[in-house]
């Protein structure tokens, strides 16, 4: 199983500069654990602890085949071979 994950500039320090890496997992959560095994430190940038449970960070967007994962189950979003995952930090701020 192979899932292509597009990595934003700010997280390429974890992937040795690679713009895209391959991972696998039957869910987004499993994929992130697989990424963490090969690129230690990346998980913490994607996921935070909320009431004792992992949750996606508020200002990180993850898309599976162009769908925002927040609408397809968040960390439980199912994945299959050949899916394309894109990680994009929010462009946001406030005064």
């Amino acid at each position, binding site marked *: 199983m192979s899932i292509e994950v597009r990595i934003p500039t700010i997280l390429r320090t974890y992937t040795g500069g690679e713009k895209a890496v391959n991972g696998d997992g039957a869910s987004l959560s499993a994929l992130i654990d697989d990424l963490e095994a090969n690129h230690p430190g990346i998980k913490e940038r994607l996921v935070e602890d909320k009431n004792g449970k992992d949750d996606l960070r508020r200002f990180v*967007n993850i898309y599976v085949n162009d769908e*925002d994962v*927040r609408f397809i189950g968040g960390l439980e979003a199912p994945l299959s071979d050949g899916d394309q995952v894109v990680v*994009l930090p*929010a*462009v946001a*701020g*406030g005064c």
Partner: protein
Amino acid sequence: MLSIDRTTYDAIVAHAKRDHPDEACGIVAGPEGSDRPERHVEMVNAAGSPTFYEFDPTELLELYKQMWDNDEEPVVIYHSHTATEAYPSRTDIGLASEPGAHYVLVSTREHGNNDGPVEFRSYRIVDGEVSEEDVAVLDALP
């Protein structure tokens, strides 16, 4: 230093004035590695707020896919402050995630939607460190 052409500069200022009192936001894309802000894209502020801005997540993906297809990157990322100075807030700094971009802040606090000068300032924000830079407004990019 940020070098930007007059037409793009004016378009950013016009966008900020039009959306006042809400914060306006957008980017100017350019060829990867060129440091040339060539293609202005106004974004919707999904927060629709006078104190916060956020690109809509679906539009954000569309924008990045276009840029990848064109071998572009965000050269300028801009937003407006509508009641405070054109300096990055703590939130702006914490959420800045494009270390290669010029972060432009426009303040509309003085004239709001009306004609009149605005503050237009540019910064690099890398690892939580802010450094202001000069802005050169040119008739055309060299």
